[in-house]
């Protein structure tokens, strides 16, 4: 039943709910160094609350193998002494966890209002043309994945592009996006303009 009398439910593509299942993937275990790091993070929460470290654990999975697999989620569950379902619940909710393989550089373009007013749609469009891929896709070379993100909290330096969840490129210009892709190919992350606060330092 729909909550609104005029709207259909479960038909005409008007239904939102969906479920993503992740691939099983290779067998997974944290490297000794990462396991020690995660144990240290767990110690910051009460002993019976190891589950609080689940986001940190999933970030470490991504650091080790780029994206989340069912095998990795099972390992995280054992490590934190919770169920695999509890890990999947979290991994499928937060947007910064990749549920399928991604390119070496994940270009995350902010699409929200302040960035859009400054030309973010054009930035995405140019990147998409240059790479020959749509949003959510990875280019044939496996180098780039293009994603849209919601407000990154730096709207004064719009449009903002985040790369691999942690590197920033601010004041992106549609005219220079093609060059940015080439530069990334050649020089790696140093091609990015960075966070302005950092740059001033």
């Amino acid at each position, binding site marked *: 039943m729909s909550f609104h009398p005029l709207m259909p439910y479960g038909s005409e593509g008007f239904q939102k709910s969906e479920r993503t299942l992740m691939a099983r993937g290779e067998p997974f275990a944290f490297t000794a160094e990462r396991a020690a790091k995660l144990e240290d993070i767990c110690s910051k929460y009460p002993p019976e609350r190891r589950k609080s470290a689940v986001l940190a654990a999933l970030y470490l999975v991504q650091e080790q193998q780029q994206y989340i697999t069912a095998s990795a989620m099972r390992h995280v569950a054992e490590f934190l002494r919770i169920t695999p379902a509890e890990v999947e619940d979290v991994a499928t909710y937060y947007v910064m966890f990749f549920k399928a393989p991604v390119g070496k550089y994940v270009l995350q373009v902010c699409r929200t*209002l*302040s960035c859009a007013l400054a030309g973010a749609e054009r930035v995405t469009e140019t990147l998409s043309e240059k790479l020959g891929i749509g949003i959510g896709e990875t280019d044939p070379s496996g180098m780039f994945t293009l994603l849209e993100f919601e*407000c990154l909290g730096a709207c004064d330096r719009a449009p903002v592009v985040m790369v691999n969840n942690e590197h920033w490129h601010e004041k992106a210009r549609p005219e220079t996006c093609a060059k940015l892709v080439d530069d990334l190919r050649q020089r790696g992350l140093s091609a990015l303009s960075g966070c302005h606060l950092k740059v001033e330092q």
Partner: protein
Amino acid sequence: MEPILTRYIQESNSYTLDFFLKHEGYQGLRKALATQPNDIIEMVKASGLRGRGGAGFPTGMKFQFVDKKTPKPKYIACNADESEPGTFKDHVLMERNPHLLFEGCLIGCWAIGAKMAYIYIRGEFYHVQKVLESELAKAYAQGYAGRNVMGSGWDCDIVIHRGAGAYEAGEETALIESLEGKRAQPRIKPPFPAVQGLYDCPTAVNNVETLCNLPCIMINGAEWFAKLGPEKNGGPKLYCISGHVKKPGVYEASMNTTIKELIFDRAGGIREGHQLKAVIPGGSSVPILLPDQLDIPASFDSVQKAGSMLGSAGMIVMDETTCMVWAAMNLMHFYKHESCGKCTPCREGGDWLWKILARIERGEGQMRDLELLTSISNNIAGKTLCAFGDAEATPPLTTLKHFRGEYEAHIREGRCTVPADWRAKGVAEVAH
């Protein structure tokens, strides 16, 4: 007003402990540790400090509600999730003045009897987190946090917790759920976090900017703080100005300052050759103000009187090239994407609203869609678990209220009537 929270942010080493200590750093904490916790709460109440996270709730009252008699541990959960579109003040504070936040967390902990503060920072601010972590290590090493804080015999820890991309994690009970390692979905209130929050223990959830105000209240007194702004709107305030202005940025001012002054004097006015069309004064969740409504103090109470809200003080400025149907659609994409999915009206309704707005923007709308937008919005607002629902209903309702003619023109002419050179060339952007 002289800037207080952002006074030194232009200095290249303003974020370091050495610099901070040379500029009254940790003096508020020193004073606090020599004051009875209850007296601090009374001081915060007298200062009139109101939460800077969006709701403007009095911080002293929040501290007072924390259950002091319980044998359970108590917590401060600092809300550094800053994801409201148009808001970027906590970003600047944390990166340029991290010790001010630590000092605020410690004063808050002392006041409510907590020995642990978790700073929940959004996952996207990893570069900020690294600054926070290295500075926190210095604070620990020099005895400003951890065991025996400033030689007082009192222990207090600060832990930085990284989120992973979810706007809803900013809602206070969703933030607690996320800290506990779950989906960021709100809890039913009551019980409020002050009674039963993190790990079922009493918790005060406070915004970054809110906590950063505590040191200056301790140093200069409640009366000084209250007098900085209009009645009940005391203290310094950070404003984030973005969109079609010449100098977007974070500006600190008293809440006596008018929105007009902020936009035209501080942020340099509208970009060359264009005119102001509309302003969203408090982050994407609040109603629009028109150009003739801006000569009012940018205070919680005045903005509310004008029919909007100060919210997170994220001001998004739009000039005449902005199509209001498109703007509503853009924001609705945000809301349908960020809904946590717990309430049906919010989860399904947001998606419907976006799809309907998109078809109007593409030129495929019908007149009855306007009634449908209004009706769906009114069936979401006030009918959901958290305030997200009210926020989500706002973009269609406020644009329809002020710019209904623009909607009708789209439908009549079967195309977008306000195309701009900064938007996507293809309609593909609208379609998916």
